[in-house]
């Protein structure tokens, strides 16, 4: 059997009295893309933050290439260079140009010289099609461009896996496409990705498995086809209907308004 790149085993996490994760387990293989979705407050973001140990889990184990990262005395900084993270609100370093946002990790963590770091950073910016914008500050970029710089920043560290925490949900509808396109390209190029998103189109295109989480537990998991054809649990069906209303075709939106008028 192939050793999974990432193995999450019975992860529990609470904030004060609030039990956010209640025993989540799954695996992610090399070059695999999995999508996590579910209602807000279900623990999706917390799960990602547990995986890169920004909020270490209370209970449970996480293995990266077979070695536990939740064990005591693990060098978390070293582990985090191998787990990239893309944030919902980009979290770019506001005082640094795009190129410096991408190269700061190479310089401060990997100890590369400025010239070398810039070369690699430019390559990463090229992947997200922003090489021309290298000298712009975050505030001079659109939301979509900022998020692509965020992706380049994670990419430049050459991590084993990249975690995406709702990367498009803070974006204007018109800017979502360019970010999803970059993510599609990355997935097709064989990047291992764990993506929290409600973009079902993206999920259908590249995800090997979808994981539905609600109230801190995995309710249902399966292929994109499984979810679009025959989801089992009532909670998932209900949620997918709502997504469909929001992101679905215009006819459906029209249907609803007509129904409302009749009612």
């Amino acid at each position: 059997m192939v050793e999974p790149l990432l193995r999450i085993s019975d992860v529990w996490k609470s904030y004060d009295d609030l039990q956010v994760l209640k025993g989540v387990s799954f695996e992610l293989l090399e070059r695999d893309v999995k999508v996590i979705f579910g209602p807000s407050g279900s623990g999706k973001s917390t799960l990602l933050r547990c995986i890169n140990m920004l909020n270490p889990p209370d209970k449970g184990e996480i293995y990266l290439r077979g070695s536990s990262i939740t064990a005591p005395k693990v060098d978390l900084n070293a582990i985090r260079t191998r787990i990239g993270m893309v944030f919902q609100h980009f979290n770019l370093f506001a005082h640094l140009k795009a190129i410096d946002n991408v190269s700061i990790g190479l310089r401060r963590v990997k100890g590369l010289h400025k010239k070398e770091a810039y070369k690699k950073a430019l390559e990463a910016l090229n992947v997200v099609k922003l090489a021309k914008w290298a000298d712009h500050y975050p505030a001079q970029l659109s939301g979509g461009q900022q998020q692509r710089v965020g992706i380049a920043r994670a990419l430049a560290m050459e991590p084993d896996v990249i975690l995406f925490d709702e990367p498009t949900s803070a974006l204007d509808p018109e800017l979502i496409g360019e970010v999803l396109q970059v993510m599609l390209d990355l997935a097709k190029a064989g990047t291992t990705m764990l993506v929290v998103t409600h973009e079902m189109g993206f999920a259908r295109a590249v995800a090997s498995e979808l994981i539905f989480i609600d109230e801190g537990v995995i309710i249902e998991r399966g292929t994109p086809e499984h979810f679009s054809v025959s989801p089992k649990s009532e909670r998932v069906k209900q949620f997918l209907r709502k997504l469909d209303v929001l992101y679905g075709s215009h006819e459906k939106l029209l249907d609803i308004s007509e129904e409302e008028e009749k009612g």
Partner: protein
Amino acid sequence: MIFQANPIEQLLAVLGYWDRLLSGFLLTMWMYIWALLIGFFIGLFLALLRQYAHYSKRWWFIPPLDKIATVYIEIFRGTPLIAQLFFFFFLPNALNISPDIMVLKTSFNFLDREITLKLLDYPIFVGILVLSLNSGAYQAEYFRGSIISVGTGQLEAAQSIGMSRLSSIRHVVLPQALRRVIPSWSNEAAYLPKYTVLVYFIGGVEEIFSQADFIQHKTFFPLTTYIIVAIMFIITITLISKLLDVIHKRTRIPGL
């Protein structure tokens, strides 16, 4: 009725002591600049402790540095500056220690007069020390406010690419916090010259108000004397505010 000279005569009489006004003003500014500078580093250090030190509490042998910083800040903000000055001035005496502070003097010729300036002795040392400690407490809160305003998102992003907490603070949070703090920090820069004059009360420091006192006794024109001193302050503080404005604009992050 008491004889009063006309305003022009009064002005000329007081300005006749311009060398004393100048040396007093220079000494006040000398203490001010040191206090602001030392207070800057004390303040930054305290703000970092107060904001970030509680993360190290998992090691039992490290005292709660954030709490200590908070107590320090509250003591220095909660007691009168004049009490702090007296406390440190009389402390060595109460402990039977004779303070041994190097005396530093400088003199230069300006126009037709020789101006002698004492830069350091025990009272001046106490003045700079106490003003620094006090200003540090106030500056700490300005810095803490601006550190908080940068937010945790960027700190987490820095850690997510493997930067250590310390390196993230140094390279991501501080460059932004120090830019953001300038407008509110200019408050402290504008307040401190006027706090500095309190050193007058520990006596033996020939700063601007002791010189003014001398001049008004010689000329019998207290109103004119103190108006001139006030004008010196308003010009200085306006210049300081302008300078900080310029620095704020120059260090602005493009697009923000």
